[in-house]
């Protein structure tokens, strides 16, 4: 029996969430006497997964699968899940993984729990703790099918080194044209820069910044911290920033280690979507802004004065601690 993981990579390099899902799967495998098998597409140094508890990597190098295709990837995972007699499949919460895993769950008639925020509560029966109501609550879900899928929330479990001997086997999936369906025509993606989904630090600006011309403040601070930039909903509605940067209940969820909110009031819809971040800092002129009730650290002050100073001081700090 095996616990299967779908490990994602970008331009051949494993993403951090690949190690996170492997770590998660290893805990289940240890508790059930199983081994972890990973499915990796076009990854360099696939054996690296052994550092996180993966005993076997099925490595796929097929030109047709070079670009992510949710339906085809789901077909590959379904095939492997059957071959390997996998009872649990662990995936991340990346946009691609969520896209793929819904199809996979439908195809396998699997039990499926998304947004798991902690290691398995229990393995037999399999119980996971997950968010509901956009972090306004948690629920414990028991997965009862013979194949079950767990989607791990970004950054919720962390990576845990656990070195095992790891074999890498080439795997050629049996695919037909039918397994592709949609065709990717063009990808417009910033590479090499932190994204909201996987950044350790996110710097976010709200309407308090007055206009798009002032976003240099946010970007400079984000640059020093290697952070992704984000914004509140009205900021994207006004076209100051692209839609993809909107975070909150109806935007992207944020689950970074550090979230810095600048000129954001802290409306309930905003807070719900960012509250999974571990540490929150707010900078706002209004001491009554609701965000102060949700934050760990707060500065009552004018962003236009505070942020440039903070950026300078962080530069010095980084130079000293490099």
């Amino acid at each position: 029996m095996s616990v299967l993981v779908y490990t994602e990579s970008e331009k051949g390099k494993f993403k951090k969430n690949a190690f996170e899902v492997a770590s998660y799967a290893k805990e289940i495998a240890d508790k059930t006497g199983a081994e972890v098998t990973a499915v990796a597409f076009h990854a360099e140094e696939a054996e690296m997964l052994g550092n996180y508890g993966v005993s076997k990597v099925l490595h796929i190098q097929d030109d047709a699968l070079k670009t992510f295709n949710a339906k085809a990837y789901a077909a590959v995972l379904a095939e492997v899940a059957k071959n390997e007699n996998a009872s649990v499949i662990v995936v991340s919460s990346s946009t691609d993984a969520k896209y793929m895993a819904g199809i996979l769950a439908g195809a396998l008639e699997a039990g499926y729990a998304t947004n798991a925020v902690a290691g398995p509560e229990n393995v037999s029966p399999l119980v996971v703790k997950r968010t509901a109501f956009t972090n306004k609550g948690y629920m414990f879900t028991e997965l009862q099918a013979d194949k079950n899928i767990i989607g791990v929330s970004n950054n919720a479990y962390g990576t845990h080194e656990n070195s095992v001997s790891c074999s890498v086997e080439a795997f050629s999936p049996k695919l037909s044209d039918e397994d592709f369906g949609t065709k990717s025509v063009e990808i417009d993606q910033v590479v090499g820069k932190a994204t909201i989904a996987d950044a350790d630090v996110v710097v976010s600006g709200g309407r308090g910044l007055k206009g798009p011309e002032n976003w240099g403040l946010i970007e400079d601070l984000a640059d020093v911290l290697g952070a992704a930039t984000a914004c509140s909903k009205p900021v994207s509605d006004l076209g100051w920033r692209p839609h993809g940067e909107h975070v909150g209940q109806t935007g992207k969820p944020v689950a970074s280690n550090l979230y810095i909110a600048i000129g954001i009031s802290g409306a309930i819809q905003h807070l719900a979507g960012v509250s999974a971040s571990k540490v929150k800092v707010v900078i706002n002129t209004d001491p009554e802004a609701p965000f102060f009730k949700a934050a760990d650290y707060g500065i009552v002050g004018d962003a236009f004065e505070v942020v440039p100073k903070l950026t300078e001081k962080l530069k010095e700090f980084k130079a000293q601690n490099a």
Partner: protein
Amino acid sequence: MKILVCISSVPDTTSKINFTADDTRFDTTGVQFVINPNDEFGLTRAMWFKEKQGAVVHVATVGDQSVEPTMRKALAIGADEGIRVDATPTEGLFVARQLAEVVKNGEYDLVIAGRESIDYNGGMVPGMMAAMLNMNFVNTCISLEVEGNQATAFREIDGGKEKIEASLPLIIGGQKGLVEESDLRIPNMRGIMMARKKILNVIPAVEAKQTSKEIKFERPAPKGEVKLIDAENLDELIELLHNEAKVI
């Protein structure tokens, strides 16, 4: 073109979320239910296809009688006909099975669902439906055009977007971006009056495999007090983030 928009009825985004005393159920007392925001974007896009391309638009939901006001609202916004599968949704796979049945029987060309419901945040129903029906599927869809049998869509990806081409029949998981915020519609009096006369078919559920069970709910831990730092003393903030919070 025949379009089905899948509507889940969810607590309004400003709702306080409470659970019953034994923490086994979501307590709906005093909660206002609305069309799931991701479905509202999709319904608005469907209205565009109706008005500009002559599409017929149906809306479907899986829910008990309590979701009817939400469905009437969707009809008041302009959907032609509604379908309610009369069952309390227990899990994503159950809902997907019901909706797949509706899609099969109704021979829809385009199925518009949402990226996720903001209640249980499953994010799974449209993908499951796509697998069950072997239909093309685009998730996190932020733009959709249809010409004849061909759809061109953009989907959001981490750090950017991807342009996708697919032939109909197609399922999408829509979200913000699919239409402009300012295009969202509030039903007017005429729409509300007309909606009363529109067909809302109630049909029984089909058999589905049960794969999971909710055991209990938990509230988030109460938040500690914020530590306020003087705007003139930013070194303290950096020190706290470094030594206390250990995040920089």
